């Protein structure tokens, strides 16, 4: 067992973990943050995407013990004072959710893009969500939602 300290959505946690515990299971089962989903469990689908020190990664492809000392953001960390993040609002506005399973990962990948590129074109949006698989929407509504999120975030800045 290893003792790890991580900051998740601004809160500090200290836990004993087994070497083989995956980060996604740590988040879901030890910290009880169920917004991070297990989809394919093979590193392909991106449903388990979280931010590790500000960058999106797949939490099923990483050990919890590797995250010792890191800062993590999960989908639960996006809302502020009960108000959804503009990217979450945009997904609702554009009907970018059907079953919702991929949504937490999609939203985080979209946010990662918009943090480095305020005005992405469609090609850039599609490349940014390449690591997130959606089996329902056919992606068009998601691409529209990310473009809409760029507008919403631009407005909230000005």
């Amino acid at each position, binding site marked *: 067992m*290893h003792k790890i300290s991580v900051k998740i959505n601004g809160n500090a946690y200290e836990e004993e973990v*087994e*070497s*083989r515990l*995956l980060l996604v*299971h740590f988040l879901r089962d030890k910290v009880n943050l169920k917004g991070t989903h297990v989809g394919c*469990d*093979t*590193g*392909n689908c*991106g449903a388990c*995407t979280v931010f*590790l020190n500000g*960058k*999106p*990664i*797949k939490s099923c*492809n*990483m*050990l919890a*013990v*590797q995250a010792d000392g890191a800062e993590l953001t999960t989908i639960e960390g996006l809302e502020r004072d009960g108000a959804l993040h503009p990217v979450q609002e945009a997904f609702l506005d554009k009907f970018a959710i059907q079953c919702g399973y991929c949504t937490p990962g999609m939203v985080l*990948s979209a946010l*990662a893009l918009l943090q480095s590129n305020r005005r992405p074109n469609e090609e850039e949006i599609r*490349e*940014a969500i*390449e*690591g*997130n698989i959606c089996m329902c929407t056919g992606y068009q509504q998601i691409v529209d939602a990310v473009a809409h999120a760029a507008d919403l975030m631009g407005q909230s800045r000005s």
Partner: protein
Amino acid sequence: MIPPKFEYVAPASLSEAAAFLAAHPGDAKLLAGGQSLIPVLKLRLASPGFLVDLGRIAGLSYIREEPASGGKPGAVAIGAMTTYAEIKQSALLREKCPLLQQTVAVVADVQVRNRGTLGGSLAHADPSADMPAAILALGGELKAVGPKGERWIAVGEYFQGMFATALAPDEVLTEIRVPVLTGQRSAYLKAARRATDFALVGVAVRLRVGKDEKCEEISIALTGVTDRAFRAAGVERALQGKRLEPKLIEQATADVVQGVNVMGNIHGGAEYRAQVARVYAARAIAAAK
């Protein structure tokens, strides 16, 4: 899926890591970015007793220029723990060695590129990985550190088979040095079932064309075709010193898998893969020139 039980160790230095490997022959596996190793563990294709994490060792992540000295040409040195994302964003590589950036652009996806490392890919030596083709086409050297010190391995001698390299079991790959390619052109072209997949066939090309439009230097390497990445030496010879006309490229690349034991699997039979290799080799050369 849950990995099998193992013990996790995080050495603070390279010498400590090499000593641990030497003390646990055959039972310890190095962990770099984990983007191949962790899926392998989850599928229970490997069950090492120990995972030795290189992620806590400082100074293994860098991209810097090494000026020419002592008869050696100028090079770009890349630390083994440098991620694909860092390679993709490097202004130095954009200027001095764009082939690496052309290649990482089609490796997996954003999340995997944020964790996966150049050294991890080369040490794993997956026969369908993209980076081995790029590194072979570039040439250069790899630095290995073991209990007896460090040594340099020429890229051409590094890949030895499926998941097999010239690294000894107690050695750690620490740096990759590639030549500065000012004045050269390059391309990496990949056929894959889905955008984020490993290569069904991947072709890396770098070349220099002279003022008379003749090809003065060309290097072509393929991945996904056989048990390891390889240089298409016959095609290179056929194009050296010639004008790269479409007809000549087509003739030369017809022999790209000559003497190679082409793999067949569920994603593509050997005959199909050989044909994709011919077509993509021709397209990659045309894209580079």
